């Protein structure tokens, strides 16, 4: 269970009158196991900032992020790193594969980092489901944006964490692949009991959402669904 308590994020930088910019205004949020939460919003509204704070990559200016009751930003680097690896899988918005490793090695990397073998079997299954099974020995350089995106999704699934946070997971994808990805994420929540969080422009995502929020100028509001 991941819980954000009264978090806010200020970027210290000159913007007009103030010397900081508040990208996320004070808010609280809970990601429950077995659910899909969807965060919609215009570009620049603060989605990525919020997702990074939730995934242990960016300390909030104020407030706490609790992972099963532990304030993750109070942990030393060693333990926070381990939490990221074991609990908080992220699909970043930017391209995020290591160019020097093959796609398969990239996907197994989170497990290998901590000396786990990582299941090639599972990796192959996810890749096949995502339509990139034929690319397992390819290097990321030659891959298209959509292929890279799906490889990153496969990596986060293989990381086998209770929480999965995806930033624009369908950004470079066509409708058909968007549907496939959303389906896989829904299964991850329903069949494996993961807490799935999506930041996206894709309104199709609302169809799989258990909870949905709209972000605007750093604030979120619930959207009623169904």
């Amino acid at each position, binding site marked *: 269970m991941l819980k954000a308590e009264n978090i806010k994020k200020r970027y210290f930088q000159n913007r007009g009158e103030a010397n900081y910019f508040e990208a996320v205004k004070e808010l609280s949020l809970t990601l429950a196991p077995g659910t899909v939460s969807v965060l919609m919003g215009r570009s620049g509204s603060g989605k990525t*900032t919020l997702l990074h704070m939730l995934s242990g*990559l960016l300390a909030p200016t104020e407030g706490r992020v609790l992972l099963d009751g532990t304030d993750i930003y109070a942990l030393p680097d060693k333990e926070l790193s381990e939490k990221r690896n074991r609990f908080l899988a992220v699909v970043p918005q930017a391209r995020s594969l290591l160019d020097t490793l093959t796609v398969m090695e990239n996907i197994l990397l989170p497990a290998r980092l901590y000396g786990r073998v990582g299941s090639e079997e599972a990796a192959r299954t996810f890749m096949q489901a995502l339509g990139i099974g034929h690319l397992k020995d390819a290097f990321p350089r030659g891959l298209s944006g959509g292929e890279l995106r799906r490889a990153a999704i496969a990596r986060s699934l293989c990381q086998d964490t209770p929480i999965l946070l995806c930033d624009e997971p369908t950004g470079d994808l066509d409708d058909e692949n968007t549907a496939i990805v959303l389906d896989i994420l829904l299964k991850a929540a329903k069949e494996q009991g993961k807490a799935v969080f999506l930041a996206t422009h894709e309104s199709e995502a609302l169809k799989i959402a258990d909870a949905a929020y709209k972000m605007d100028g750093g604030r979120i509001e619930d959207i009623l669904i169904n």
Partner: protein
Amino acid sequence: MLFRMIRGVLFHQRGKMLLIAFTIALGASLATAMLNVMWDVGDKVNKELKNYGANITVKPKDSSLLSDIYDVGGEEELNTAYLREDELGKLKTIFWAFNIVDFTPFLDARVTLPDNSTVKINGTWFGHHLDLPTGESLDAGITGMRSWWDIVDGKWLDEKEEGAEREVMAGTLLAQSMGWQVGDTVLLSGSHGTREVTIAGIFDAGGDEDEQLYAPLDLVQELTDRENKVSSIEVSALTTPDNELARRAARNPAALSSRDYETWYCTAYVSAICYQIQEVITGSVASAVRQVAESEGNILDKTQLLMVLITILSLIGSALGISNLVTASIMERSQEIGLLKAIGARDYSITGVVMAQILITALAGFAVGYIMGFGFAQLIGHSVFGSAIEMKARVVPIVAGLIALVTLAGSLPAIRMVLRLRPAEVLHGGR
């Protein structure tokens, strides 16, 4: 996988890694060359010093006073005090025995030739074999101490050869005026006898010696009935350049505190060696031929200081170069590093991977640099000293240590960058 990542990056950033290796190689080569030259030059200058002749002369206590005041050294009638030949071996028993490179006794006289003219004859050792009380043995004599003599004809005398006790060497001027050739026999009359000798060699010393004869010590002793007597000893010793303590001690060793005395006695100052020589040679005064010893020592110090400075500067230069290159390479990889952090890599494993890459690169650079440094050293040796530089084994670990230090220091800014890198900043879309 770690290995593959390292290899991947080495291969991936070949250009940059090559530059880093090159920078390290440059630093390593200069350090190697300078340190080798520095140590070798010390030995070389000492050898030059030895070639220059004696740096210590030992005289009988009484005569040294007289001849210094009246400048009558060489007039045998006044030379009433002598040193004992059988004590010479003791020179190799003093504390600094190993620093005594060579030594030879002298005993001079005037002899009359068949045409009634007189010439000065110097008795000395020529490759004289000595069995020391310590059980060791050595050859000592004038040959090594007059290395600048040009043997115009014939050869150096050698006491170990058959018949050497009836041979002499003649200066070129003397030989010319007498019309002597190598192999000629000459009749020499001294105060106590006459001997027929053979001219074994004719030398050009470029000084007064060119009008004199040099003969085995025994021969001169027999001619003048001065068994076991020598009038002076020349000693060639490796010495430490004098400092304040050495100068104070040279004035009066007895005035030193016991601690200073110990330090002085156990350092190869020329004054300490002189003092120790006086302790073993009865009735002697040993004095340094100062000009030579001191100026050589000073120049040596300055040259070595210069080389240490060059080494330090080149290493600082390498560190700056490495720091720029490594930082640039980290910046290029910030996206990857951010990602590694995002999927749970710890700071220290990332810095570990980074350092491993840099160290592999540094090792390659060091190996190439050492070989280059060897070349530089030989180049310097041949162009400056006209001989090869002997590579000292201890330079390898020293340069390796220095390069490791420089590499680590150069990598520090980059490591700080890795630690400060916030994954959110590099993973942010569009950045």
